[in-house]
């Protein structure tokens, strides 16, 4: 049950920062904070509702500049915004697979980042789209690349008197494509057992600015730089994609647990990376208005389980 707590709902940003510095726990959608309090995981005497802060509100896209998203932007906003599907498809895929529709209406991007779960669905896509976190406090504003913003399991580069205010994501050219694959045991209301995101720009058939990120593969969402290096500047081929997948599989260090064995996770990382790269590359080759078209999966050489068996006689 939800215990008793003091609730603050300031409208003044500096007041909010002071309350947070004093130990109040920020809450936006409450889809993590209140759930943990209700389940007895967290005992929080003071809660800081930040929904009134205009510094954290609003969301816009400017051609050439990209996205400027208030930390309070709900996943559902991203999911239903056409610009996202055309320019940041992986981001659409991530946000549209968070929990359920109800949770996506309440849960925010800022919350997804600050909760710090390695399984967060919006983070991998934001990492491959080179997102920047903006934090602010009494001493002004700081911009930190999202990858650097994570400093450890549920730890961030943020001071006690600072709040995450905005997320900025650069615009994408028409020759770019991205994809996210979330591996779950069921079709909704599930956490990623494993996830892979990829972003690629195509210069003819040469891959540029390749970025790959892994979800639930380490204590924080992480980039797979080794795999990016394999692909950077290389022409597209089945072989190079499989090589990148091998690099991902060796860089991700999943452990065995009752949820699944390490062997299984490594195998998934490998196979899912192939599919995600395939999808991102195919998408990069399409004009903006066709980027949201479904891209059929394809099996690559060396992928286990693909050996087609001869059809049996009926």
């Amino acid at each position, binding site marked *: 049950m939800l215990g008793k707590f003091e609730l603050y709902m300031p409208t003044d940003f500096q007041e909010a920062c002071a309350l947070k510095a004093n130990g109040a726990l920020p809450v936006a959608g409450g889809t993590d904070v209140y759930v943990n309090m209700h389940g007895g995981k967290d005992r929080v005497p003071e809660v800081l509702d930040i929904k009134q802060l205009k510094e954290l509100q609003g969301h816009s896209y400017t051609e050439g500049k990209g996205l400027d998203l208030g930390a309070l932007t709900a996943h559902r906003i991203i999911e239903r915004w056409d610009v996202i599907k055309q320019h940041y498809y992986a981001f659409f895929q991530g946000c549209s697979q968070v929990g359920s529709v109800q949770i996506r209406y309440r849960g925010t991007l800022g919350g997804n980042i600050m909760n710090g779960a390695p399984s967060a669905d919006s983070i991998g896509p934001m990492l491959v789209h080179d997102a920047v976190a903006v934090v602010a406090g009494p001493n002004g504003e700081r911009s930190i690349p999202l990858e650097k913003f994570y400093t450890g399991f549920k730890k961030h580069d943020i001071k006690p008197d600072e709040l995450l205010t905005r997320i900025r994501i650069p615009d994408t050219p028409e020759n770019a494509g991205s994809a996210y694959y979330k591996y779950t045991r069921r079709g909704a209301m599930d956490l990623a057992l494993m996830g892979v995101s990829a972003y690629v720009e195509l210069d003819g058939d040469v891959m540029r600015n390749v970025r790959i990120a892994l979800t639930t593969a380490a204590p924080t969402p992480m980039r797979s730089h080794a795999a990016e290096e394999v692909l950077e500047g290389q022409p597209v081929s089945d072989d190079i994609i499989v090589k990148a997948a091998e690099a991902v599989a060796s860089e991700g260090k999943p452990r065995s647990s009752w949820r699944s064995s390490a062997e*299984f996770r490594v195998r998934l990382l490998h196979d899912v990376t192939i599919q995600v790269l395939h999808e991102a590359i195919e998408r990069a080759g399409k004009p903006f208005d066709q980027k949201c078209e479904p891209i059929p999966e394809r*099996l690559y050489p060396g992928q286990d389980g693909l050996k087609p068996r001869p059809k049996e006689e*009926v």
Partner: protein
Amino acid sequence: MAKKIDLHPYEAYHREGQEWDRLVVKRKDTDGTEKVIGQSQIRKDGVSKVIGATQYGADINFPGQLYGVAARSPHPHAKILAVHTEKAWEVPGVKVVLTGKDYPEPYGQFIADQPIIALDKVRYQGEPVAAVAAETEEAAREAASLIEVEYELLPVVNDLEESMKNETLIHEDWDSYECSSACFPKQGTNIGDEFHLEKGDVEKGFAEADLVVESKFRCGQLQHTLIETHTSTAIANPLTQEIQVWTPNQSPFGIRSLMGKIFGVPAEKVRLTLTDIGGGFGGKYEAKCEPLAIALSLKAGGRPVKVTYDRHEEFAATVCRSTVQYYIKTGVKNDGTITAQQVTGYWDAGAYVTTNPRVDYNAGFAANGPYKIPNTKVDTYVYMTNRTLGTAYRGFGVTEAATLHEHQMDIIARKLGMDPLDLRLHNCLHDGDVGITGEIISTCAVEECLRAAADNIEWDKIPDRWVDEEGYLWGKGIACFNKLTGTPSTTSCILKMNENGSLYIWSASREMGQGVTTTMPQFAAESLHMDLERISVSPVDTSMTPYDKTTTSSRSTFHSGNAILEACEDIKRQLCDLAAIKWKCDAEDVTYTDEGYIQRLSDPEQHIHISEVGQSGIMHEQPPVIAIGRYGTSDIFDPPPVEGRQSKRPTVMWMIGAQAAVVKVNPVTGRVKLVKMGASNDIGKAINPTGVLQQVEGSVIMGLGHTIMEEMIYEDGNLRNGNMVDYKVPTFMDSDVDIKITMVEKGHPEGPYGVKGIGEPGLVPTAAAIASAISHACNTDFDSLPIKPEHILFRKEVAD
């Protein structure tokens, strides 16, 4: 090959987004022109549930109510050296703190092996070690967390294999417990019950076989995951010894006598008022919150005490479906004829016996499936471990038995090169065959069900397995079953006509989503030719409602329907008598017509329709119209003796059905999609067709979860996934299955209008059919549930 029997033409029906049909094999007391039964009706409980007006257990509150919370053991197996309650007492608002010493008498329906609060030792993680009642739930939870217990840890019996060594005993002295005649614990072992059935000579049968096939199958441990967690509110006065409990329970009279026994008061002083049930499935058959709430209220001087479990308690400390490890050996001739079959099974029943003997018993009679088998042997054992308590789960073990025998049938079919459907048709029971207890089988429609299920996925047009252009693996599978209903059992009802001519039914058959509060009025409406709107089921209260054994075993519509039809005949007679008074004629001169008219024989112009009885004045200041209906099955029951369990009539009703599945498996990710499910159940007569379809549809999705997702995972007695995030239940997004259902109607001679049960049977073949399809798709034999993506990716394929 079994020859195709002549089937009656299908009556096709369409519901939006759903295809289904009805196959009438045999009618009983119906001709298909009935106005109320056999017609889909709007659920009586539907509107109040949809608008949120239904009062569930936790909605009951009283002035001056206290909140009860249990302090629970973090250890799966430990001696209790001391319990310190001082700090709990210091929390403001705390009124009662109980420990095991306050109520040391153990209880149990089959064997009294379970204390309300652990006394000398704890046997599972989450077992109550103390209980607190306080003015607020917050204070109660706070106080419960401050209970300090000194434990001496004992070795943990984490699984069956460990339990079967009998090195660490969960119960050291079975003989010290009071035990019923239906439970067979074995002193000095972890065996809490055993079941043995023997027909013919299996060794002789194996010797006659051309091929002997052996396999095993394991079903994982499942939680009922009821939307409404367990809850009870009690007012128990220590001076008057009167106990009243408001609770959502499936077995009001069973719990009444159990509570009377525990608290040493006569049954009539225990009053259970039943709230609406937010999900039962067997999970609300045991006493869980009831004894805690009563004990706390007694110690609080009779103040109301409410105990509601949270989801963590629900997982760790209520009940579940036991793990079972089965072994099966079958002898077959080259033409597919089964000569003998031997089944050995081991249930992991958890820490206390609870209902496991009944699970063991029901599954034992179903272990061989609906097949002609001349020589059979079934030996099953209930083993105790330090896990949460096993109990009934929608089918009393028969679902697990079906996965076993159907898995074996698939292996036999493959080895003989036979079509899996043909092998089943070749061996399935028909009327006149001898069942595994020596019973002459009647009203058995396995063949019809198998064929209908197969047709519903176009079985003949698709191979066992194939690979599509994108590389997905496809497979089909089929499964059938038979399940008995608990016999003997009795029920009764009272039909009370109100002054305005409307009718109340008093029956303890509980509505728990299965629709019995709609089907019971349907029987009365049909019999009396009365408007269904004017008939309703009264709330259930053990101080008023007549006796009914339990709402389990898919028995309610069958048993209560019979009682209601009997009572309706009495209502008709009473109304005729009243009309005779009004018309000043002999009672014999008045009849009740098939159209619902109370009519004078000598002057047919004098008549009153049942819908006008209220206005007619015939009831005015006359003896009230009230009738009793009773039904029991003791007379037809031939008790199966403990030795061999042979019986001419082990059950009043065998339930029969089949399902056929088509699955699509992603070879890269190991994810399974259930594409199609062709279902077919012999329901005797569909009283409310929509209700039947909903039972089957719900079962298919539930069974899908059992096949590929759900399992309770323990490590050293610690439950790892006791929450709704980590214990995966299918969501709506997993439920996009093309389901086609055929309702087979082979009227049961003892069923009201021929009806048979459908509460559990929809689920029984589901996991077996889906597992079969997945095994075919992956060209392997998965021998345990759930089948997880890991199993699929790292499978060993079988040789063709």
